[in-house]
């Protein structure tokens, strides 16, 4: 069983996240972190490899800092790590990202077939939740997304997920090789111990450029983006805010506030 887990380095949720003048996510704040939901993806990949045997390759794309994301995956038990890094990737949208990740997964597959690709359900910067679907589309894989629970049946060569959608609870089964995305309900990510952290330090991270993947720079980054931000503006603070401490009449004041604002 060979599993590729895709991870992303994102600005820390607790930090002051912002856009650049060009309308890109500002990735130069120096306080980036592994996308929290990708910890669930790594945990799912490592757990499946432990259960069924095999290896996990962590894959990321992004500027130099993004290597931290695959380092974290190595600490959590991934066996190998790949970092696609190229200046031409700057400004990639979901399409450029999926195209690049797909090329990297194919390249990883040259060393031995990939049975499963695992991702988080969304990156906590863009929150589009569409890269898993685009990636599966490029790779021609069946997809089982938004998993709250993942089980693998190597004998039947299938992966099965349970997921909670807006109007229904579903069980979806996909033939291997397949793509799975997981939610934060899927597991409790392990916290790497000292030994795992030390062992991860000794592992090399393979760096690939676009040329290594045979990709045309015009297809990715700003050049290949299918959307363009015209304007990015920080939200002005809310005005006329009211804060009251209950002295026995706060419910009445709340009702009056709602009535005044035509909300009842």
């Amino acid at each position, binding site marked *: 069983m060979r599993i590729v887990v895709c991870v992303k380095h994102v600005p820390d949720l*607790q930090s002051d*996240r912002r*856009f650049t003048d060009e309308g890109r996510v500002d990735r130069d704040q120096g306080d980036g972190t592994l996308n929290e939901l990708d910890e669930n993806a790594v945990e799912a990949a490592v757990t499946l490899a432990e259960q069924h045997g095999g290896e996990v390759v962590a894959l990321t794309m992004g500027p130099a800092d993004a290597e931290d994301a695959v380092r974290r995956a190595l600490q959590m038990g991934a066996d190998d790590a790949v970092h696609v890094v190229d200046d031409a990737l700057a400004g990639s949208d*979901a*399409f450029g990202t999926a195209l690049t990740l797909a090329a990297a997964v194919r390249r990883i597959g040259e060393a031995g077939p990939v049975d499963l690709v695992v991702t988080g359900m*969304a990156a906590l910067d863009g*929150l*589009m*939740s*569409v890269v*898993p*679907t685009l990636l*599966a*589309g*490029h790779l*021609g894989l*069946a*997809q*089982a*997304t*938004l998993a709250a629970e993942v089980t693998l049946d190597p004998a039947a060569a299938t992966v099965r997920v349970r997921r*909670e*959608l*807006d*109007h*229904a*609870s*579903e*069980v979806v*089964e*996909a033939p291997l090789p*397949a793509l799975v995305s997981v*939610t934060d309900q899927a597991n409790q990510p392990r916290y790497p111990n000292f030994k795992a952290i030390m062992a991860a330090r000794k592992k090399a991270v393979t760096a690939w450029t676009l040329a290594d993947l045979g990709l045309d720079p015009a297809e990715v980054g700003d050049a290949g983006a*299918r*959307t363009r*931000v*015209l304007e*990015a*503006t*920080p*939200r002005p603070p*809310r005005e*006329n*805010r*009211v*804060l*009251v*401490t*209950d002295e026995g009449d*706060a*419910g009445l*004041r*709340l*009702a009056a*506030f*709602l*009535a005044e*604002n035509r*909300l*009842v």
Partner: protein
Amino acid sequence: MTTAAPGAAPVLVVVDHHDDAPRSSAYELLTVARTLGPVEAVWFGAAPEAAVDRLGAWGVARVHAVPAAADLLPPERGEALAAVVEAVAGPGASTVLLASTFENKETAARLALATGAGLMVDAAALEAGPDGRVVAVQQAFAATWTLRACTTTPRAVVALKPNAVAAVAPDGAPTQPEVLTHDVVPAAGPVARLVERTPRPASDRPDLGEAQVVVVGGRGTEGDFSAVEELADVLGGAVGATRVATDEGWIGHEAQIGQTGVTITPRLYIGAGVSGAVHHRGGMQASGTIVAVNSDPESPIFEIADFGVVGDLFTVLPQAAAEIRRIRGEA
């Protein structure tokens, strides 16, 4: 609201429906679509007949029924939709609109991949840009930033958040839409199959993602949602919850609001016993008016509340509910 110039390329609207009834988000999409061009609807499933008159009254010129798509999962729905787009859209710019749910975002992504379109999801508003392209307004970073974006491609696929716009029926006489049925053959290739589907039991309350009012219970409820439910019912709203409340099993996971749960943009959000952790804020900060009731004055939710009450939710909420009934003359 303006109406698009005649001769513009058709705008396709995917009409989500429950049995025969379009969901409320579909009427919102139809309202926006009218400003962008002549409106055609896509109906996944057989027999749109029961809804055709209503769609006609909402300005739909043609209904594209795709019977086979009813049983397809989102990626294959996206492929089916691509076939419809290729079949109907003339040359030049065209737009496909969907309601921004997780399933529809996957459908939209696959459609965009198959047709070379640009994709914008979770849009809070749509405008016709000066060059005929669609401009989407999006909220980012827990609604602390607002983006205006457009596609660089001639074709745009846009998923619009429920509640982002008010649904307004057009003036004028209803049309009688023509119904075209598309026999779409799913493309060959490996696909996932649905093993089991358990619809959620119908509730008297509105759907969380579509509700105009949402009352949310957090850790401070200590598992007692009665005051939250009472106020939600008085306001005709939905009940939501924080991650803590769902993890504790106080309420189902489907009620979770936040970056990994449901994202809501109601006119009115009321958080009771909700601290306002960053993950939760990411799912609700774009709400119109934010009210918070929490006994801890240090709760971060007060930083974003239009009206904050430092107090005990078990006294404040029932008092507010009773007062609202009194104002309405119900008690």
